């Protein structure tokens, strides 16, 4: 639940989602759900020459299970808060 809440706070930010097929998609985070499925708006593929497969797609839904990384804006990361929250979750409380 921690990362679900975390991603919900990032809605509206510009992120890059790298998938497990090496495709990287950049766009504005529109929404996220319990499975960490992600919806992006104003999307563009990072290397369009190599991957022209989504040239006519501007909004997309990415299945959580195929996400390898989500690259965040530096100002979207509060390390102190994440440290506290992950430690609390690891303790089981």
């Amino acid at each position: 639940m921690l990362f679900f809440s975390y991603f919900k706070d990032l809605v509206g930010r510009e992120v890059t989602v790298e998938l497990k097929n090496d495709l990287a998609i950049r766009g504005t985070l529109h929404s996220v759900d319990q499975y960490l499925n992600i919806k992006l708006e104003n999307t563009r593929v990072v290397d369009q020459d190599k991957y022209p497969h989504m040239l006519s797609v501007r909004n997309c839904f990415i299945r959580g299970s195929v996400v390898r990384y989500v690259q965040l804006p530096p100002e979207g990361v509060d390390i102190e808060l994440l440290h506290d929250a992950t430690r609390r979750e690891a303790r089981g409380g």
Partner: protein
Amino acid sequence: MLHLFARTQKQKKLVHNLSCRGVSHIDFGSLKMSGGPGLESLVDQTISVITNDGRNIVGVLKGFDQATNIILDESHERVYSTKEGVQQLVLGLYIIRGDNISVVGELDEDLDAHLDLSKLRAHPLKPVIH
């Protein structure tokens, strides 16, 4: 007034149940947002699906469920290769199991109309490796 906001059968039923209990206002817009990134907004639109084995299937979204299983109507596959332009294979009505889906993209009809598929060359997408 409540019924004005309800569009789908499900919403109308919900409204009926709630008005029996005295609830007078629901904002279905915000309900949808809190539901996260569902595919409701893409129903009856043309979508482009990328599957885990790297295929690209384009069709009209007719239905979906919690597990991202989807029903596509009038679908075709776009086969990418480096030797020739994009080939389109007619598939028709398709059900794709959610496990096998990577990305569901809303196809912008204008952008797609301006795309010259016969000149587009690229390697097929790599399969997903978990």
